[in-house]
């Protein structure tokens, strides 16, 4: 008899140990009244993340009851999380793909971001045409002397397949999925920047919001990569920052945050490094 009791106890012990983990999932379902503490879950693009962090910091300072939990996991991941309703808001640094449009989510463009082609600060090349960039990235141009620089082999640096920045850059420059073999591919803006900063022969591309003095942005078709040039349409390599959600998942608090991000106050924060949409 005691044997069975002991066995039952062992099982009960395990169940209790696992209970907090299992019960965790149920808590989130409770809808919060407006005056209660609330956490907005946001996940997605690593390029949108720096902007989202700034917006969240300003918003939560004014609304102490709200916590914004942002995660930079990648554009596709953010779209998936928003679609599967594991995140209230998803962030993407590219337009939704055809197969993702069919999820039926509401999309809000909160900012526009320019993608700057960057080289090592010691590189004398100051201007490249779209055609030259395409040539470099498809392998037709392999030496800096071919585009007016010092002789030396070009080290092409790119983002990884699926990245929002890469998708937008390839689409606008016009070499979708035709990246030259032998190019270095890094995940994340930081990897590309560090690689270009450490190699006098390298060329890469990063979000304008992530520019630092470690690298030099080249003009594209004679136009400098600045927010103002994106607004007047002369700088062509730009892409939207999209936030998407399902209407049945978003809370009043999440909606209020998004409305605030689109307001003059929120767009003023966007203006610090990105291009506001209003």
């Amino acid at each position, binding site marked *: 008899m005691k044997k069975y009791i002991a066995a039952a106890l062992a099982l009960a012990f395990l169940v209790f140990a696992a209970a907090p983990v299992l019960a965790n999932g149920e808590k989130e379902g409770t809808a919060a009244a407006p005056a209660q503490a609330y956490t907005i879950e946001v996940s997605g693009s690593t390029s949108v993340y720096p902007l989202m962090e700034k917006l969240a910091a300003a918003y939560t300072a004014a609304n102490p009851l709200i916590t914004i939990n942002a995660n930079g996991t990648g554009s596709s991941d953010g779209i998936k999380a928003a679609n599967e309703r594991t995140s209230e808001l998803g962030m993407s640094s590219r337009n939704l793909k055809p*197969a993702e449009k*069919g999820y039926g989510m509401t999309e809000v463009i909160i900012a526009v971001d320019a993608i700057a082609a960057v080289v090592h600060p010691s590189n004398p090349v100051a201007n490249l045409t779209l055609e030259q960039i395409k040539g470099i990235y498809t392998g037709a141009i392999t030496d800096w002397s071919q585009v007016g620089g010092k002789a030396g082999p070009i080290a092409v640096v790119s983002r990884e397949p699926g990245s929002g920045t890469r998708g937008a850059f390839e689409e606008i420059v016009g070499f979708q999925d035709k990246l030259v073999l032998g190019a270095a591919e890094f995940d994340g803006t930081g990897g590309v920047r560090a690689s270009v900063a450490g190699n006098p*022969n390298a060329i890469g591309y990063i979000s304008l919001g992530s520019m630092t003095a470690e690298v030099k942005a080249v003009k594209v078709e004679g136009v400098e990569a600045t927010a103002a040039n994106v607004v007047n349409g002369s700088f062509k390599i730009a892409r939207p920052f999209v936030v998407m959600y399902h209407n049945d998942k978003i809370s009043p608090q999440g909606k209020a945050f998004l409305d605030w991000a689109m307001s003059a106050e929120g767009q003023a924060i966007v203006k610090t490094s990105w291009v506001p949409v209003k």
Partner: protein
Amino acid sequence: MKNTRLATDTFFRYLIRFVSLFSVLALAAMLLFVFVQGAEPFLTPTSDSIRLVAQNIPAITVNGTEYVNHSTFIPVDLDSTELRLEFVNRGQPLVIPVQINNEVEKVEDRLSFPAEYAGATTYPEAYTWMLKLPGTIVGLEQSVTILFPEPPYNFFSFLGGQAWRPTHLKLYGILTMIVATIISTFGAVLIGVPLALLAAVLIGEFMPRRLAAIVRSGIDLLAGIPSVVYGFFGLMIIVPLVQRMFDAPSGSSLISAIFILSVMVLPTIVAITITSLQAVPRSWREASLAVGASKMQTAWRVVFPAARSGILAGIILGVSRAIGETMAVILVAGNSPQFPTAFTDSVRTLTATIALEMGYAQGRHSQMLFSVGIVLFIMILILNTIVLRLKKHLTKGL
């Protein structure tokens, strides 16, 4: 008293059983999940119907069925030979018959749009067509996207394919990555193992005990350093060095990866080899020295062979670390999915592909990454089987 002990004994006996049962079930569930995800692209098409997405079109009629304010997929039967799209564009009702011909070899030509819409249609990705018409307001263009299901992917084009172009062309060939994984692991073993064995014999057999203990704790510390630290060291020091030494456009290359990996396998192999050398009985060494062998002869001819089983275990662990290493390799290898023709070429390993693209992969692309994981899993299984056989063969005389 006796009864209490019986009770506690039984309690723990069952606790152990339940815990092991749960662990086995959890492991099985995980493997099942990976295998189901990884096998799907080769067994099923991406969907069982043609799917349409209409944007900025309040009401659209597809083959006679009307969809009003429909934001999700509009399914169309696969056997259809025509897509009849009816909607209102800038106040004008339009009827666009799109012909489907599944017999055509080239996927891009399977849909034919009426001639007047040729300029408005694009083929943005494989199996995807888009019809875009200007709307009443700039920026609110009307578009209809037509997605064809991708057929099950050919398993041999996966394993033997040389092109990894997952986003637009939807080509998933991983042969280049398998080759790069094998070469970088093999290179790391070729450099790392002899160095590790020499170091271990020096520390285990020739160093004074006290100094050996200090060096030993240093090596254990090295084995515990996170791989990203090695990777960062490689990115900052090795990569620029390789670039200057070989005058290559970029130092992110196969040789950098081999170098970092061979450094990373050292501590594991050294530590385990020292332990197995020290496990050889003192009397063996004494017997060897007594018959007149030198200390060097004793170390290489008596102690080393006696410890070979343990040494081999150390090498296996080292190889597994090299083949499964991800973070450090991503930072130094360059990650271009190509066949290496020189040591300064940028290469991509299997693990790097999974880690680089998981956060950004979508649909079939993400399932393909699970398939890559299965290939890696099978490669390690094969490697372990070979080494186990080798071990049996080597330790026959003991």
